[in-house]
């Protein structure tokens, strides 16, 4: 039984689907791979309209390049950051196993621009550890690396060298007092501020394969931030990130409803924001608990240990 507000949000997503099977970022715009993947992930989580999801998956497959990448648009192949999202959307669907496999191969072979750290007094993080970039031929950053790790771990590649390196990269980019920003630590010896959305995605990506002691300060940071978060991206990822470590708040549904209510003030949310909130409602133990390959239950950990 889906609660009224969440069912309404799902029906809204469904209504945005276009004849080509894709979903737009906002109603009335052209379909986009990232929005389509998010629509499929959230609707699948609620087992809502499987036929609509299948048409969405077909649209995603139509957007896949020969080398396996799924980019934000065919005219911008360098912006391949939606590829992990497509891997999620194709998960457990035999018809798209080959497409998913090619996307995984692309991610394994794709990395950012890396180089020896030029001068630690200028850039504090280790610039040589391989991760994933937003855009080809640029440096690797926290969010695209986290999304790639989530996708690769979901398909059972938790021990792949790229996954190991990606996790090391995230640990290296963690800030001294906890949390992550977009992916820098210190610049000219000044430590930058953490950001909740980046911290939550990184925590989500490190769950189940990283000892809690290595991220305890970041969990503390995110728990401290949580009461102040209302907007869908930060709140949605925070709920997922904490859930992945067994720290999902008991008030999750209430928080999500309050965030949905904010649309009366700010106007309609874009599709990925709505979908993220819906995933946060359904994923009891982080995003990976929506899928089959990873453990469904992460042991509840007391971060005070």
């Amino acid at each position, binding site marked *: 039984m889906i609660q009224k507000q969440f069912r309404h949000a799902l029906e809204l997503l469904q209504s945005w689907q276009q004849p080509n099977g894709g979903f737009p970022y906002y109603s009335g715009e052209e379909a986009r791979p990232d929005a389509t993947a998010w629509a499929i992930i959230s609707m699948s989580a609620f087992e809502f309209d499987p036929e609509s999801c299948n048409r969405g998956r077909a649209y995603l497959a139509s957007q896949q390049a020969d080398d396996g990448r799924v980019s934000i648009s065919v005219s911008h192949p360098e*912006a391949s950051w939606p590829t992990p999202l497509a891997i999620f959307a194709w998960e457990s669907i035999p018809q798209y196993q080959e497409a998913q496999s090619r996307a995984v191969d692309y991610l394994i072979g794709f990395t950012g621009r890396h180089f020896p750290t030029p001068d630690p007094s200028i850039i504090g993080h280790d610039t040589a550890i391989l991760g994933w970039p937003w855009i080809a031929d640029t440096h690797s950053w926290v969010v695209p690396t986290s999304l790639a790790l989530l996708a690769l771990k979901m398909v059972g590649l938790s021990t792949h060298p790229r996954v190991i390196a990606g996790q090391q990269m995230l640990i290296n980019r963690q800030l001294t007092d906890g949390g992550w920003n977009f992916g820098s630590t210190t610049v000219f010896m*000044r430590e930058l501020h953490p950001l909740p959305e980046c911290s939550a995605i990184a925590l989500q990506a490190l769950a189940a394969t990283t000892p809690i002691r290595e991220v305890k300060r970041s969990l503390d940071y995110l728990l401290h931030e949580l009461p102040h978060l209302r*907007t869908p991206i930060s709140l949605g990822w925070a709920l997922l990130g904490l859930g992945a470590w067994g720290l999902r708040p008991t008030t999750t549904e209430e928080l999500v409803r309050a965030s949905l209510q904010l649309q009366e003030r700010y106007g309609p949310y874009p599709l990925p924001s709505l979908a993220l909130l819906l995933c946060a409602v359904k994923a009891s133990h982080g995003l990976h608990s929506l899928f089959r390959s990873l453990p469904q239950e992460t042991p509840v950990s007391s971060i005070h240990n």
Partner: protein
Amino acid sequence: MTTSLKHTEQPTLSRRQLLQACLVGGGLAVSGFSLLHWLTAPRLTAHTFIGQAETYDTDLAKLIRQGFQELGITPLEIKGKRILLKPNLVEPHQSLSHINTHPLVVRGAVEAFLSLGATSVVVAEGPGHRHDTLLVLEESGLADVLYEDHISFRDLNTMEGVVMPNLGGQTWMASLTLPRIVKEVDWVVSLAKMKTHHWAGATLSMKNFFGVMPGNYYGWPKNVLHQAGIPQSILDINATLKPHFAIVDGIIGMEGDGPIMGAPVQSGVLVMGRNLPAVDATCCRIMGINPDKIEYLRKADQWLGPIQESLIEQRGESWRTVHRPFALVPEIPAHQGLRSSKL
């Protein structure tokens, strides 16, 4: 921006001076021709306006309207126009008002443009470091102003892009992908913050347009532009976008390790103008920075606009009366040698 450029009369030279100039360096014909061209070519000029506002409680809409008047911007010119205001919202943190364009400056600019008859004013930004633009709006305090005043906002990071030929030619990028909305408005206005910057020296109205480039195509941070070269990218974006106006919030700016980690500094000014290099050069003078030492301004000089003091006609306050040197960080290479030597 080009609409505001004017060419001065040719500098007056006596025949003797001209002859002497041509003969300098041995009198080679080629050198003589180049020098002659330099001496006699029309020079770009511009006007800038400096308005004093000690605090954000000042009637900023009135001050901006005064600036419009001084700069010759009339209701006839603005009536019916669709205006896009692009503030600088980087990494807001509650209580740190020196990082971002202040919400009351945004409100003042909206009111000023509407009072001159603009059909619509939309505020739009693509924060360089953050995906959660809505949280950026909330933390910066801008969300309240937008809501109270019924001002629409667009997230440029996620907006569909339009590919345009790169008219700057300073980077390897043959084209730039700009957010669709820039083709749907009549005026693009940089609503920038007066800050030092640890990679570019200073971030003012021209650098502010990094935030126009959608994160979907340029990343978070907009690392494609870093790889292409920050000064070069600033020039390419400005040459392609052709912005129409700039208002720089220097009421409280940022000195030291800007654009995020620096300290607040009260300059108490808004700096405005149609020509962005001229506005930024004026800001630099207020900040105690030699604009010739800022690479993107030096390269913009006499291409996108003037930066030499003699070619910028000052309206409102003189920059000398509001001159307040911003602290620079000696260890930061981009800050080295920036200080202007004299008033």
